[in-house]
């Protein structure tokens, strides 16, 4: 035992561990970028992961086509597009209604979007053992991506960039328990906090907590980001599926079906800039 503790190899392992912990500590404090070793190994394996993802997509498309038929798939795509369109219209409608009725300076979502700068990205790998369904995309710091950039699809919010490598980035989704987003009901403006839960994440659902007991939210209301954090205002998060009083009886918790199909997402848009973002970073 003494020989083992005094061995050169044990000392090297202790040294390497100390270096790794120091690097982690530094990165933990300053945040943002990935550790050097993960960046290197991740960059080396990225082409293989991209290729495997492509093969998996092709294969899964073949299986889907075989199972459900081409026509059904087309019809489904058409309907999905229509649902996205209608969701977007409802968001706009409520925004405009609110603008007319209450606040003149309440900005419309479409007007807000003028300042957005987008970067298209594709999913290359997913952490299957993560209850929050985090994934990796094929764009990194060389593409102008930074930590905390919001990630969306045409349907709604997906999550944010949690770590940035040179040519790839990790996305923490809104299904994760690690996330906490300020949100409001698009119709009633009741505010709450959206937090993931491992018990319902596998169904593409998340929770909106801390809603006041006197709030007037209802089923099928659309929940959007309230802004002021790392996300711009007005991004669709999800639709209310059920409501229940919290365990401590002081607030209401809503279960949301996320607007974006996070479990099957392939292509996403990363918002690399929006007004007010600089002050957050």
């Amino acid at each position: 035992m003494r020989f083992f503790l005094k061995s050169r190899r044990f000392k090297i392992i202790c040294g390497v561990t100390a270096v790794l912990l120091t690097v982690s500590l530094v990165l933990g404090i300053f945040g943002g970028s990935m550790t050097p070793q993960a960046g290197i190994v991740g960059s080396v394996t990225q082409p293989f992961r991209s290729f495997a993802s492509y093969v998996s997509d092709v294969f899964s498309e073949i299986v889907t086509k075989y199972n459900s038929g081409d026509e059904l798939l087309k019809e489904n795509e058409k309907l999905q597009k229509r649902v996205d369109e209608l969701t977007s219209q409802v968001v706009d409608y409520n925004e405009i209604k609110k603008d007319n009725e209450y606040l003149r300076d309440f900005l419309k979502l479409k007007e807000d979007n003028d300042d957005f700068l987008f970067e298209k990205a594709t999913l290359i790998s997913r952490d299957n053992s993560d209850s929050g369904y985090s994934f990796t995309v094929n764009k990194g710091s060389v593409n102008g991506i930074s930590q905390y950039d919001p990630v969306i699809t045409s349907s709604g919010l997906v999550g944010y960039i949690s770590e940035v490598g040179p040519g790839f980035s990790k996305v923490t989704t809104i299904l994760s328990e690690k996330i906490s987003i300020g949100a409001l009901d698009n119709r009633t403006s009741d505010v709450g906090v959206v937090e993931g839960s491992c018990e319902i994440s596998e169904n593409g659902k998340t929770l909106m907590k801390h809603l006041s007991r006197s709030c007037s939210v209802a089923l099928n209301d659309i929940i959007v980001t309230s802004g002021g954090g790392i996300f711009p205002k007005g991004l669709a998060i999800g639709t209310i599926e059920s409501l229940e009083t919290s365990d401590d009886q002081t607030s209401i918790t809503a279960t949301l079906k996320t607007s974006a199909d996070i479990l099957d997402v392939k292509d996403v848009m990363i918002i690399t800039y929006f007004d007010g973002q600089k002050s957050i970073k």
Partner: protein
Amino acid sequence: MNRNSKNDEIAVVSVSAMYFVLYILQYTDNIFGNFSEFPQLMLAATVCAGMFFGDKYGAIFGFVIGAAVDAVSAGTVSYNTVIMLLIGYFCGVAVEYFINNNFKSVFLVMLAAVIVYFFGIYALNGFNSHLFKNHTFHVAVITYIFSIPLYAAVWFIVNLRKNHLRK
């Protein structure tokens, strides 16, 4: 196979190739469907590397595998690199000094590795008992279950090479 006996390079390369394929499969979206609980096969792979190839290779495998896992896991910083480096190394040391590398001892070594690794995950998640009870614990159990066939696969590759060299 201990530190003093030279590792069969072809066996090391073959196991590395198997691990690489396993890594790609584990982290490719939709390939096994979207399961909420999926075994951490890379942990079992690190343990096997330490047990079959000794502490030096165990540490190297652990470092590379850990870095690869850190590259795709959210919010882990260097956790996987550090913990898998240590697990790979100590599994090699355990086989060299304290236990034999056989199917009996693998149950014990894997259990120890799974406990250490997932306790670390529990700590990394801020001792979130809700997440641990509903997710992490299940992943730990299925990782332990899946680690045995993986050990058998590595054992098969290594022994296939041994028999080939004997002939």
